[in-house]
């Protein structure tokens, strides 16, 4: 995994697939769809990472992979660049909150700052699911 100081908005997708190599095939497939253009990080984090994360959270015995993904998200959540923080908050945490059961499962793996973002996101959208017992 890249050191946090090496991660910037314009290389965060590459950092993501380095940290979570299982995403590379889906990422490359998405890039091919775009031809000469490049999808933005919110698109990759949403369309590629979120789908993978939901699959993991609905599978058994994926603890190691889930820890790996959430460790990377926590790195971004603690980054000084607010646009990297936004990837975690408004694309990943927001989507996890669409399904309360999935969100509750995710709490187990979230770092402190990611959990804070998740709670802030749920409050912003006015959603009811803000359990505190399994943080």
């Amino acid at each position, binding site marked *: 995994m890249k050191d946090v100081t090496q991660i910037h908005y314009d290389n965060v997708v590459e950092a993501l697939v380095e940290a979570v190599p299982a995403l590379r095939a889906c990422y490359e497939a998405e890039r091919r769809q775009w031809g000469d253009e490049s999808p933005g*990080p919110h698109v990759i984090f949403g*369309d590629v990472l979120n789908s993978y994360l939901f699959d993991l959270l609905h599978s058994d015995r994926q603890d190691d992979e889930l820890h790996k993904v959430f460790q990377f998200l926590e790195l971004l959540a603690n980054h000084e660049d607010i646009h990297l923080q936004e990837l975690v*908050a*408004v*694309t990943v945490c927001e989507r996890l909150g669409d399904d309360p059961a999935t969100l509750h499962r995710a709490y187990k793996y979230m770092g402190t700052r990611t959990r804070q973002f998740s709670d802030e*996101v749920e409050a*912003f959208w006015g959603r009811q*699911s803000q359990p505190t017992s399994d943080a």
Partner: protein
Amino acid sequence: MRSIRRHGAIRIESHVMEEETSATEGPDRDRLEPPTAEDPRLQRVIRELYRTHTRIPGGTAGAVRQEVRTGERIGGKSHIRKAIERRRQLQHLLRRTDLSDQDRVTAQQLLDDLRDALREAGFDA
């Protein structure tokens, strides 16, 4: 899928297709349910744009409007960059030739909504 044209705005709802002439001023920004699409990539965009069980209608575009109108953000974080990148994705999808007519209408309506919200935020394309 229902497609209703009102004063130039297109409203898309599920399960029914009919024309309706009753007047509702302005674009339909406050629908509670997201549209649906046949195309899996467009459906994925919709899933990423719209939130469930929320107090704020309109998904990401609605969130941008909420930020602009109230100054409310998520711990200082904004939906604007997400909206800009999704706008570009919808523009890209609309250049494809294999979208159904209905999906094309849906994608264009989503794009227009994001454009309007971003314009309110001062981010014209």
